[in-house]
């Protein structure tokens, strides 16, 4: 066992941390929250200049070709800094989908330009009132002579105002899995986008599609249902999201620990009260467990092992942990913790978003149970044979 990052990985972490500190301090976040486009151009440019926008995109497609561990390292820093950018949606999720399901033309069109930061590609999966199940996708794609005609509404489409395209998940049939993915130019006739004010004050949009014609050339996987590939992209993405949660929680927790050392009540630091000290200790345990879970998930993916179950566990645990940690951080700060001027609330609001926006706890628990039952039934089948 060796749980130490390689020298290159440590350099990547330090570089990302420096970029975040230089270009995405919390003061910048405060200016960006609730505004459009909702991320700092300077920060995004700095990431692009450092090659980060192509972090996990293959060399041959113009990226750095790095693995899940590097992705985790970078996203842990993004989480720690609460650094908003299109990195997750475009360079991680969309790039993964396009590289696993795109034909040569699509890959050539999009991957180098995502890697170089020239294009931002968003994802439209969630719908109004919809959960994360494939059956919740109601947006419909009807076959036409030249492609598809799309109709429906998507919620929480990140950075849609700046995105050059979005991968829209749409239904072509009644079976649960009859879901295809189309690359849609958000400037097409029939597309309208609207900023959705939200809890974390992130730049997410409602995208309304009214009879939007999409060419057959923009259908991923040649218009075949691609539920498995979508899920595979999400399982990879979960590692980045869980890493963000760990980074954010570590920072929030460190703030609370620091505050507990300096804030005095009854003539002593509040950290000397066991009620405060123990709740911070509980959180430390949670964070440590989740940090290891996320690392294990990244390692498993990089080794080519089946990583879905550990990735789902990491996301489930890390996001619930982050939420609790952010709550404890507010509580330890007392009245100050409830003000907008203090930083704990920034983490508190972000934590709930991370938990709910991409595969929430309900959905993850279902997947975990399915996978565990599957494994145990395979085990007993083996037992019977041997």
């Amino acid at each position, binding site marked *: 066992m060796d749980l130490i990052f390689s020298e290159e990985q440590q350099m990547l972490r330090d570089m990302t941390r420096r970029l975040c500190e230089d270009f995405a301090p919390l003061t910048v976040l405060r200016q960006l929250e609730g505004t459009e486009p909702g991320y700092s151009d300077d920060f995004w440019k700095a990431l692009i200049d450092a090659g980060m926008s192509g972090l996990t995109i293959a060399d041959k497609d113009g990226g750095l070709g790095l693995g899940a561990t590097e992705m985790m390292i970078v996203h842990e820093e993004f989480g720690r800094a609460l650094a908003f950018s299109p990195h997750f949606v475009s360079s991680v999720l969309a790039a993964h989908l396009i590289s696993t399901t795109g034909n040569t033309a699509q890959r050539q069109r999009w991957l180098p330009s995502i890697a170089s930061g020239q294009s931002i590609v968003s994802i439209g999966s*969630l719908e*109004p*009132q*919809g*959960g*994360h*199940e494939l*059956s919740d996708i109601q947006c419909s794609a009807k076959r036409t002579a030249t492609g598809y005609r799309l109709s429906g509404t998507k*919620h*929480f489409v990140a950075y849609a105002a700046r995105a050059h395209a979005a991968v829209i998940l749409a239904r072509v049939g009644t079976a649960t899995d009859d879901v295809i993915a189309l690359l849609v130019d958000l400037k097409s006739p029939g597309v309208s986008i609207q900023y*959705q*004010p*939200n*809890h*974390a004050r992130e730049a997410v949009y409602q995208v309304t599609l009214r009879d939007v014609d999409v060419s057959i050339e923009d259908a991923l996987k040649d218009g075949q249902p691609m539920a498995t590939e979508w899920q595979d992209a999400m399982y990879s993405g979960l590692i980045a999201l869980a890493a963000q949660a760990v980074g954010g929680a570590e920072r929030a927790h460190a703030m609370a620990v620091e505050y507990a050392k300096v804030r*005095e*009540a*009854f*003539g*002593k630091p509040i950290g*000397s*009260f066991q*009620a*405060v000290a123990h709740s911070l200790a509980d959180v430390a345990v949670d964070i440590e467990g989740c940090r290891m879970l996320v690392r294990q998930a990244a390692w498993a993916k990089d080794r080519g092992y089946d990583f879905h179950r550990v990735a789902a566990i990491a996301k489930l645990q890390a996001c619930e942990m982050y*939420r609790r940690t952010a*709550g404890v951080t*507010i*509580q330890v700060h*007392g*009245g100050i*913790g*409830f*003000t*907008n*001027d203090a930083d704990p*609330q920034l983490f*508190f*609001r972000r934590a*709930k*978003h991370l938990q*709910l*926006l991409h595969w*929430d*706890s*309900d959905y993850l628990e279902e997947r975990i149970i399915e996978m565990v039952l599957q494994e145990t039934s395979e085990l007993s089948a083996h037992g019977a044979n041997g």
Partner: protein
Amino acid sequence: MDFDFSADEKRFIEEVRAFLREQALLPDAADVMAPNRDSDSMLSDTPARRRFNREMAKRGYLGMSWPKEYGGSEKSGIYEYLLNEELARVGAPLIGKGIGIVGKTLIRHGSDKLKTEFLPQIRNAEIEFALGYSEPGAGSDLASLKLKAERSGDGWLFNGQKIWNTSAHFADWYWLAARTDTQVAKHKGISLFLVPMNQKGITVSAIHTLGEHRTNHVFLDNVWVHDDYRVGELNKGWTYISEALDFERFTIYPFSPLEAKLEQMWTHVKSTQRNGKPLTAVPEIRRQMARLVAQVETAKMLQRSVIFSASQGGVPTVEASMCKLYTTALSQRLANTMIDILGADGLLHKSWPDAPDGGKWEWLYRSSALETIGAGTSEIQKNIIARRGLGLPLTN
């Protein structure tokens, strides 16, 4: 044993409900009653709110427990509690600060001059107060407050700062705790004063919160007030503050908002489908709802225990701490559970037209973070339960 309210108490509840139904029809009702924002209406000043409070005064709802000589009707405090429950249910401003804390303290300890000047104004809802207790360095440990009051001519000169003084930006008078003796134990050198909020030397600056409420930081720079506006005896302030808290245990933790939230959750759960099934048929949701139903019932019982003890003339310090501790944590769990049930759309802010229940849950998830902090943090409630309730030799 009887868990029911008496016939007269029930009649009173019906009367208040009828009054509130009437008020709900008025054009300015939305400014007074905001059931989706708890008693939000209490935290800002609107003409509607002042009108509503005067209407309450006219109905005799202000000062019900006060002695007759001060215009009260000498009713049991339970009526004030019941009134607050109904106000809280519709999100109208609660009674308490003026009638309870200021009014009852003046009745017991105030000079004739202060009684004559303030009690009628309080009873007629002509006056608003801000409570000036907490300081940047004195929250949980309130008795360590430092704001200085020094003798100056026939009055007092105040210097220092206060924080978290809700409504200080619109209040008329300040109910101010200040240090009048630095040579004695911290509890023994505090006095209470009434200071006009517009007095020279007071600066009020806004603090904005996660709950989208305003509270205030208040700076006092050579603020002068005549000794007539000292409340009760010199250096007895801490006793009065604690005593006032005891009066208020009756009224400050209404339970009806929890019940109303649970009802609203049911409305959603009953009318929403998931995978073609109503949410009421989803086993996980059923269990979550059952747990909340049980917990809300438990909260109600903890609160009944406070009311009962108070109605018997007791001072239910420990019961009130139990009730506050449990209820506030429950309120946070409830908001979290509901957002989880709503899924991603639960994150939409009230300014999005289709936000579920007008964005109530997203807001509640934020605003309820205060509940375990304000009016004595959960940790402090546990200390009270352990020390006063269990007699444990807690040190701090």
